[in-house]
């Protein structure tokens, strides 16, 4: 490798004083992090296909099989009887956000193991901002997946109110933030990629099935009062209901409050966990390289 002098346009390394970061610099950083996440997603076609296939299997096969078995009475926000496919569609949107949020957690553990995480964490921007940027990037990818699913569902005959597709966007965003923040917090606790199976068993499956994603809460209450209480304590329950109501142009204030509160809680915990002076990362003392 030759060693030519640094060209004038790059030269001037020393001595330099940097101006303070302004809003423009923060936006450049945010855009860079979001763009990278989107590019990674586009390069991993299998990830996109599997993220779409999972809810579609539930919609095409599970819902078709169970529509005769599981009757859904008229409960808010529905004003008439709805087909089972229509009932579970908001839950399947939530499922996409849940899996995607956990996927972003998986990718953070992978990045940490591979060393890529270091490039993010040694950025001079505040760590909270880097983590929020990473979350927003994850949410952007999640929402794109949800809309891809809703388009396919539309052609399958599962159609919501036209305005609902717009109204649901803020609910998807907030729910996605909550689940990405949870994923980020979990990623700080997982030391190795192999431990991620535990997330599947202890977070994704219980979180999904102990919620009104597949069956209304009143049915769960009839079956088991204990399970009903567990569902009420599950933040994912409120994410699903927030999405369901928003899809029909309504706001479920309880769900909005719980999801917003949990988002702040999980985000604060994730920021603390990734703070080198206070967090779990510093206690694990390994961010991808040799000690």
């Amino acid at each position, binding site marked *: *490798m*030759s*060693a*030519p*002098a*640094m*060209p004038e*346009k*790059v*030269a*001037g*390394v*020393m*001595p*330099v*004083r*940097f*101006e303070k*970061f302004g809003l*423009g*610099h*923060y936006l*450049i*950083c945010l*855009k*860079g*992090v979001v*763009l*990278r996440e989107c*590019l*990674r997603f586009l*390069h*991993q076609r299998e990830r996109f296909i599997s993220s779409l296939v999972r809810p579609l299997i539930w919609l095409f096969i599970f819902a078709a099989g169970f529509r005769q078995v599981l009757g859904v009475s008229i409960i808010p926000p529905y004003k008439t009887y709805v087909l089972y496919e229509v009932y579970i569609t908001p839950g399947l949107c939530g499922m996409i956000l849940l899996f995607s949020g956990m996927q972003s957690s998986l990718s953070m553990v992978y990045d940490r193991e*591979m*060393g*890529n995480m*270091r*490039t*993010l*964490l*040694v*950025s*001079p*921007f*505040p760590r909270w901002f*880097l983590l929020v940027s990473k979350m927003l990037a994850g949410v952007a990818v999640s929402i794109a997946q949800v809309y891809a699913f809703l388009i396919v569902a539309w052609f399958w005959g599962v159609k919501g109110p036209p305005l609902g597709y717009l109204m649901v966007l803020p609910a998807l965003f907030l729910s996605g933030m909550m689940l990405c923040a949870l994923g980020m917090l979990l990623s700080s606790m997982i030391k190795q990629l192999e431990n991620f199976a535990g997330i599947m068993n202890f977070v994704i499956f219980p979180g999904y099935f102990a919620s009104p994603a597949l069956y209304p809460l009143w049915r769960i209450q009839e079956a088991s009062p204990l399970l009903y209480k567990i569902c009420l304590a599950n933040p994912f329950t409120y994410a699903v209901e927030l999405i369901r109501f928003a899809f029909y142009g309504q706001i479920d204030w309880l769900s909005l409050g719980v999801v917003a509160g949990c988002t702040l809680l999980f985000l604060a915990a994730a920021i603390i966990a990734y703070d*080198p*002076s*206070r967090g779990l990362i*510093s206690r694990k*003392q390994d*961010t*991808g*390289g*040799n*000690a």
Partner: protein
Amino acid sequence: MQHVRTSGPGDEAAALDVAGVSHSYGPKRALNDVSFSIAPATFTVLLGLNGAGKTTLFSLISHLYDTRRGSIRIFGHDVSRASGEALRRVGIVFQARTLDLDLSVHQNLSYHAALHGIGGREARQRIAALLDIVDMPGRQHDKARSLSGGQMRRIEIARALLHRPALLLLDEATVGLDIQSRAGILATIRKLVETEGIGVLWATHLIDEVEDGDHVVVLRQGDLVAKGKVADVVRTSGATSIRDAFSRLSRIEAAGAAEISP
């Protein structure tokens, strides 16, 4: 982003000042009361065998770990208290490969530029110029996955220089590379010290990467056992060469001497 040339008091500070730094992994002490400093525009070799504490020290300097005992300053900015200001002045090449293999060279470098608030035309210009410097012109659109180990290292060096750091840290940057690639990378870094005034901390366990005019800092199992110019370290350790001095300081038995050769 505009960079303002200055000759203010901050420039007189050491490029890197490590003072009384200790670090432990649970009960295992990785660094024990380590102190040294690096002047701007100098090439300093951090010598130590595997497990000496080099990577731990790099993790502390780059604020991946918090400095709990002692202090680390980069051009006068405390890494723990003003990590942003400190990290803006430092470029880092980690021991582990950190390129995103799914992305192209340009995408990898653009991402890093964004993480330093550099975007648009300025980022593109810097990327093109730095690829020339690391002898990979026109390779912007190559997938990182398609590059050899040596080429990946060159890209990582270009990436570390993108935000115009005044201090460059390289952790075992030549490990796993052939002799030609190693020599090329080393020559490029040394040239940057001369022409651009960048301070360099070059961590290695390969003694042939040390030159007579260099400063060296020698770590052994977390303890700093020697520091200074090569000639001074050789003299004070009663050795005949820096290789001999490193062997004595690291207490390498004859059978283990091959470990410090490429």
